[in-house]
């Protein structure tokens, strides 16, 4: 157990404490209770920066299930450090922002902060776990907490739809990732990511290598909203804005990028990996920015912009992986620049996109709408918000003096480098990368400007707004201000960031290049007049032109009608899946218990009886039987008679008493068969059961007659006699075929092993105590079940949940 383990678990534990605190201090805005946690974690990870940048890594491992190679092991290196800083840093700002965004009176804050902290812990777990299975566990936990947060306003239909969609897609991807992980485990025999990286060379020829790669990428793509799985992200915008800022732009959607970066040392250099990651990434980058321009809702616009930016980073990771083809060499070190750019842009994106989401949240909060068609002219009413928007959007558009400019230039450099590649048949297709990247950037510029100009400039139309807009309270502005300051600061001192965070991360993504010359480029705002700069100039000019002429060319979007979108495909699949499975189920699920029992018994008779018959294992050997005394014979006859008479009794009371006869006779048998504990238990239980039956009869009518027609009775008789006969045959065959010795001689040492002379009780309390514990839990569950069945009755009147 290291300090990292404890820190990782703090948010998850706190998630459970938050509701308790909420109940204890009803006057407190729970955000204040949650705020210290990310701050403490952030300061811890900041304190690790210097040692990580000196090349250290922190590991720790706690055994969980050794037999399954499950260790709760953590690994903190340069790559995970960046992510932990983002998670806790942005987390602190988001919590602070949410304190002013969510009203204490109207919202269920204990849920909100519990989910948020749960997410924080899960996300930290994803980036810190070294064990594949533990990583998967945390990965799905992020999906679950994201689901809960998107559905936070669960009374809205759209929230539930968005939550379900994101859950289905990300968890579906997660499951495929799990399969990929298992394949990796099969190939390498270990679950530790670091050990797998060390074994890279020995698994590359394995036949499962490429399938594992594809499956893991599927997990990454769904999580990071890559085309065509991006459709969940716009719908996830139904979540409260702090959640969108945190999960759906800064952290959770970057988990896919993290996964790609983490596995680059394993899969990098493989052509499939290169093409999938860079190809899907660059297309997503274009498609996201292209779709963002048409959006009318500011948050939807930002969602598509996030998709596009994630695609950009993804493609950079893909392009950079080419450096690993054929081993590390001084010639291919130039390709590693792409990965450097990816990491740099990842940080930058979190700063400016986080700020943008918060700003949009402010507009939504103070104006009451996010619809671009209604907004306009807010510049004089919300000057600070306007300034923040300008900083963050211009950074997103890639303009100086903001950090987005630097990483955008590096992105262009990387795609231009890719154009020069000679591997992976890039000499044929390489040119596509700079072209698509450039077109995508033009649209990026256009939508960035839309955010600024349509919202804050243009005519102000009060009549279209729901409330009087005014500047946001200071508390809400602090977080975006801090982020915007970072946006500017990173432009001026990018190399500090590079030294402390990016270069250690580069070393962990590309261990083969460890500290090689040219791995860590010097970031400078001015490179002279090179192609990248001209590309940026082109982006600005064309982007501005597109913005001006939007009215004339927006017909282009009619070629991509809503009807034929991927979104519709998803809905169609969901609807088909539902109706198809309903039809299949309806065919045999008749709603009658009796029918189901017939299925079960029929199957039992067929399979068990068939097996017995076919394998010829029916052996009847009565030679070892103990002798039967007269009394025992009498009890057997009594029991058989009592049992059969139950079928013919007219009164339920008689039937119950006959059942009691059976129970007490069994108790007598227990005495005869040397089982005093059982006899005692059986006696008491039988008594209490009979009391129970009688108590319930008080509430029930006398039982009705069963149908006596042969048509109903015949199948029943066949099945029941068949089952009885099968039981007898099975039991006799077991008696006849003693395959191995009884294990019970072990328990006869109970006095030495457990200090008890009563073997049965030693088994219950000591040897098999786990069974007994669970048994008492089952008993308790049954008790709670009975209690709730009786006490909880359907309330009168409906609820206020919006249904389809």
């Amino acid at each position, binding site marked *: 157990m290291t300090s990292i383990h404890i820190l990782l678990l703090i948010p998850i534990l706190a998630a459970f404490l938050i509701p308790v605190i909420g109940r204890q201090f009803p006057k407190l805005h729970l955000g204040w209770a949650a705020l210290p946690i990310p701050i403490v974690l952030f300061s811890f990870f900041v304190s690790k920066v210097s040692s990580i940048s000196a090349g250290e890594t922190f590991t720790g491992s706690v055994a969980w299930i050794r037999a399954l190679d499950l260790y709760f092991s953590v690994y903190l290196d340069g790559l995970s450090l960046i992510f932990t800083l983002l998670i806790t840093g942005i987390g602190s700002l988001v919590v602070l922002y949410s304190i002013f965004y969510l009203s204490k009176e109207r919202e269920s804050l204990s849920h909100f902060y519990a989910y948020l902290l749960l997410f924080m812990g899960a996300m930290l777990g994803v980036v810190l776990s070294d064990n594949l299975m533990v990583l998967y566990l945390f990965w799905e936990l992020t999906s679950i907490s994201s689901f809960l947060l998107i559905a936070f306003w669960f009374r809205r239909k759209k929230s539930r739809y968005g939550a379900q969609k994101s859950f289905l897609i990300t968890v579906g991807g997660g499951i495929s990732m799990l399969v990929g992980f298992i394949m990796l485990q099969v190939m390498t025999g270990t679950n530790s990511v670091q050990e797998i990286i060390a074994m890279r060379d020995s698994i590359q020829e394995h036949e499962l290598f490429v399938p594992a790669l594809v499956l893991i990428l599927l997990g990454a793509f769904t999580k990071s909203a890559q085309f065509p799985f991006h459709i969940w992200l716009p719908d996830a915008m139904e979540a409260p804005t702090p959640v969108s800022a945190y999960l759906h732009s800064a952290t959770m959607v970057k988990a896919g990028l993290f996964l790609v970066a983490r596995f680059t040392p394993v899969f990098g250099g493989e052509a499939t990996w290169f093409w999938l990651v860079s190809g899907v990434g660059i297309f997503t980058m274009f498609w996201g920015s292209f779709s963002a321009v048409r959006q009318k809702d500011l948050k939807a616009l930002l969602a598509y912009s996030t998709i596009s930016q994630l695609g950009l980073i993804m493609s950079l990771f893909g392009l950079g992986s080419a450096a690993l083809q054929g081993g590390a060499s001084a010639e291919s070190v130039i390709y590693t620049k792409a990965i450097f750019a990816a990491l740099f842009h990842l940080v930058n994106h979190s700063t400016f996109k986080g700020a943008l989401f918060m700003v949009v949240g402010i507009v939504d909060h103070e104006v009451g709408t996010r619809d671009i068609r209604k907004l306009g002219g807010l510049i004089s009413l919300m000057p600070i918000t306007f300034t923040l928007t300008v900083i963050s959007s211009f950074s997103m558009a890639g303009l100086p003096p903001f950090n987005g400019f630097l990483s955008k230039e590096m992105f262009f450099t990387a795609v231009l480098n890719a154009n020069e590649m000679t591997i992976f048949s890039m000499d044929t297709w390489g040119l596509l990368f700079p072209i698509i990247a450039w077109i995508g950037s033009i649209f990026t510029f256009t939508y960035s400007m839309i955010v600024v100009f349509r919202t804050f400039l243009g005519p102000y139309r009060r009549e279209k707004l729901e409330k009087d807009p005014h500047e946001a309270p200071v508390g809400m502005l602090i977080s975006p201000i801090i982020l915007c300051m970072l946006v500017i600061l990173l432009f001026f001192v990018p190399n500090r960031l590079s030294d402390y965070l990016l270069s250690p991360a580069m070393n962990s993504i590309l261990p083969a290049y460890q500290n090689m010359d040219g791995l860590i480029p010097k970031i400078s705002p001015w490179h002279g007049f090179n192609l990248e700069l001209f590309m940026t100039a082109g982006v600005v000019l064309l982007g501005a032109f597109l913005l001006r002429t939007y009215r004339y060319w927006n017909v282009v979007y009619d070629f991509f009608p809503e009807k034929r979108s991927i979104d519709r495909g998803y809905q169609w699949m969901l609807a088909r899946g539902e109706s198809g499975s309903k039809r299949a189920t309806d065919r045999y699920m008749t709603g009658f218990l009796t029918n189901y029992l017939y299925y079960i*018994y029929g199957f039992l008779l067929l399979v068990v009886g068939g097996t017995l018959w076919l394998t010829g294992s029916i052996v009847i050997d009565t030679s070892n039987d103990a002798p039967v005394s007269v009394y025992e014979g009498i009890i057997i006859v009594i*029991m058989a008679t009592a*049992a059969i008479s139950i079928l013919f009794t007219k009164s339920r009371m008689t039937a119950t008493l006959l059942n009691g006869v059976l129970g007490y006779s069994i108790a007598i048998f227990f005495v005869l068969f040397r089982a005093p504990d059982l006899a005692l238990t059986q006696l008491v239980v039988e008594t209490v059961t009979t009391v129970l039956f009688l108590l319930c009869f008080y509430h029930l009518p006398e039982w009705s007659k069963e149908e006596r027609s042969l048509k109903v009775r015949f199948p029943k008789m066949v099945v*029941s006699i068949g089952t009885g006969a099968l*039981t007898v045959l099975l039991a006799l065959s077991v008696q006849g075929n003693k395959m191995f010795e009884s294990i019970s001689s072990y328990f006869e040492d109970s006095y030495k092993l457990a200090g008890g002379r009563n073997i049965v009780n030693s088994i219950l309390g000591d040897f098999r105590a786990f069974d007994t514990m669970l048994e008492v839990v089952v008993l308790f569950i049954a008790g709670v079940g009975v209690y709730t*069945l009786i006490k909880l009755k359907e309330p009168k009147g409906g609820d206020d949940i919006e249904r389809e």
Partner: protein
Amino acid sequence: METMIILLAGVLVSVATYLLLSKNMIRVVLGTAILSHAVHLLLMTMGGLKIGSVPILGDTVETYTDALPQALILTAIVISFAVTAFFLVLVYRTYQTTGTDNLLEMKGTEEDE
């Protein structure tokens, strides 16, 4: 003895199955109770009957009856009690809500209402 008990268990299983296939809910619950009796008997038989002495360690005894089935049955008795109790309450709450104790009248889902 074993064969006799097995035959008895077979009778009990047949009766229980017949009751389970009834339309009256109380009969079904009774069926489950009888089924568990049959299973207890079978488990007991599997360990061998009337061999050795009571499984409580003493100084003079050489062999003991198999204690493992006994421990299993002890667990099973308590669980089947819990299940029977739950079933009974389920039955009478169902009767209170639906007004019938006939399984054949209870077909249907929400949309049929």
